[in-house]
């Protein structure tokens, strides 16, 4: 009885990681055109919410002066820890700086980390994953086993270790370290997409017609691999922002004078629970930013999956 209800066996399913489980629903068919994707996104309320939030944060990052009322670096110590008021919408922090301005500035650092981690991960994943998937054999073995080694070290633990080596650093270093532990996941994803793509009809057809390996990879296999990667990238932004906050909170991430929500949380922790407002504002912004990217990922995912809205793709 249950056999009747299994989806038709047209895919090779090899869930080795969260990414694959995430982005490759069982029984995925060939992807629709990008135009369809866009149409679907436009109908999704979540996309609008996500896009709106992200746009605001990007604006905060690029042009903080649009939001600022005060200089975030003007910190008269006598103004330490003032409560929220008309002068200081979010109050002041321990050093006497206007907290609202500092929190706004924090967006820039978080987005920087998110951007670097996701773009680097995409590049690495696309190159290594495609190579492993397409060429197979010992290339695959070497890459996959190397990925396994880094994969089995939990991200926070590993990043803690490496960053202690460097005694924390700027957003670039912290991002690079997070990538060190994040790349295997996305790479595996690309690899399995490529593997399932390899056996598709159109690829075989192209082969018969004489196209060479790399060209097939570039023109046929990769474009299909990109979709799940994009979805995953959205999640990666969210999780890397969270990871940076966690690492900075633990003392190994960013340092003064970098303005980061993680740092603000670390300081807020020392005055918790008395000056709870110090914890509240960066937490709120952090949640909103991460949430926005997750929403984005969700809506992208739904848009790229042909079957979800009842159509046949």
């Amino acid at each position, binding site marked *: 009885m249950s056999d009747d209800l299994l*989806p038709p066996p047209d895919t090779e399913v090899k869930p080795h990681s969260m990414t694959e489980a995430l982005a490759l629903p069982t029984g995925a068919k060939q992807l629709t055109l990008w135009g369809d994707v866009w149409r679907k996104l436009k109908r999704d309320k979540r996309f609008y919410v996500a896009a709106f939030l992200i746009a605001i944060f990007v604006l905060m990052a690029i042009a903080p002066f649009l939001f600022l009322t005060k200089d975030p670096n003007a910190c008269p110590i006598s103004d330490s820890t003032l409560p929220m008021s008309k002068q200081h919408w979010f109050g002041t922090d321990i050093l006497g700086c206007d907290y609202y301005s500092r929190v706004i500035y924090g967006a820039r650092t978080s987005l920087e980390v998110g951007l670097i981690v996701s773009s680097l991960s995409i590049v690495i994943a696309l190159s290594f994953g495609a190579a492993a998937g397409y060429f197979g054999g010992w290339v695959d073995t070497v890459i996959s086993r190397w990925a396994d080694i880094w994969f089995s070290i939990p991200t*926070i*633990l590993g990043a803690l270790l490496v960053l202690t*080596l460097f005694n924390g650093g700027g957003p670039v270093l912290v991002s690079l370290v997070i990538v060190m532990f994040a790349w295997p996941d996305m790479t595996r994803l690309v690899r399995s997409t490529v593997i399932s793509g390899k056996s598709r009809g159109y690829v075989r057809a192209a082969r018969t017609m004489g196209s060479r390996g790399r060209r097939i990879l570039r023109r046929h296999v990769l474009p299909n691999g990109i979709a799940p990667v994009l979805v995953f990238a959205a999640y990666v932004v969210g999780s890397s922002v969270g990871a940076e906050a*966690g690492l900075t909170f*633990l003392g190994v991430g960013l340092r003064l004078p970098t303005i980061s929500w993680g740092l603000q*949380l670390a300081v807020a922790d020392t005055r918790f629970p008395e000056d709870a407002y110090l*914890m509240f504002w960066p937490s709120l912004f952090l949640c909103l930013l991460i949430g926005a990217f997750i929403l984005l990922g969700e809506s992208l995912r739904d848009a790229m999956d042909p079957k979800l*809205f009842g159509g046949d793709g």
Partner: protein
Amino acid sequence: MSKRYLIRRLLLVVPVLLGTILIVFALVFLTPGDPVNRLAGNKPLAPSTYNEIRTRYHLDQPFVVQYFYYLDGLAHGDLGATFTGRDVTDILKERFPVTLKLTLGAFAIEVVLGLLLAVVAAVKRRTLLDSAILVFTPVIVLGFVLQYVFGVKLHWLPVAGIRDGPSSYILPSLTLGLGLAASLGRLARSNVLDNMAGEHIRAAIARGLPRRRVVGRHVLKNSLVPIVTILGLDFAYLMGGAVITETIFNLPGLGYSLITGIKTQNGPLVVGLVTLSAIIFVFTNLFVDLLCARIDPRISYE
């Protein structure tokens, strides 16, 4: 799923683990600074004491030598000792149950709540519940909030430590479990929706099979593979010791131990902890793969 594949997977575990140990060892070794001098605060240790401790722990040897000493110990079941003389094995034995309890607690919450959310959201698509799953609060924030509200203000639950037996694990488990439940819920929901939209499912419903039964039996079962995968990953992640949660709630588990070990540059302790994590991870992965193969016979790994 052939025996050959299983053996091959098991054999591959060894080089991966050796590689992991080497990398972690190197990272700890390369960290600048002197773990021995820390023992006396900022007062200078007598040179004789300093030299004695260094020699005792082979700290005066080059990296490769130290690495082989470690492997040699490992082969004899000895994970080394910290610089205060405690056996790493003893420390792991002490810490392991704490992390295990935390993991089980968080895991239970994740599974029950997550799947519940998933099914509910899938069945009642496009309602507010759908979007509610997407609430994401980082562990740091959730931990403090729960600790403050339920521990300090309401006095319902312990604030820190494991003195109060099982109730000590409630807040930390919630802190970890809620977040994981939310992400599991999202993933599972997508999969469930996905499967429900499949032609074969719609056909079955059209044929008259009760909707709930279809969802309950068949859709869930088909969604099981990715769900099991994620649960496996989450389990391994939890067993690595949720560092932040353990710090906030003062739970003497593996993660808490790791922070201490890293900050005091206790090589053997750090390597021991990460190795344990890695072992758990690799075997959980293997187990999950095997389980998935059993659930869904179409999966082939050859």
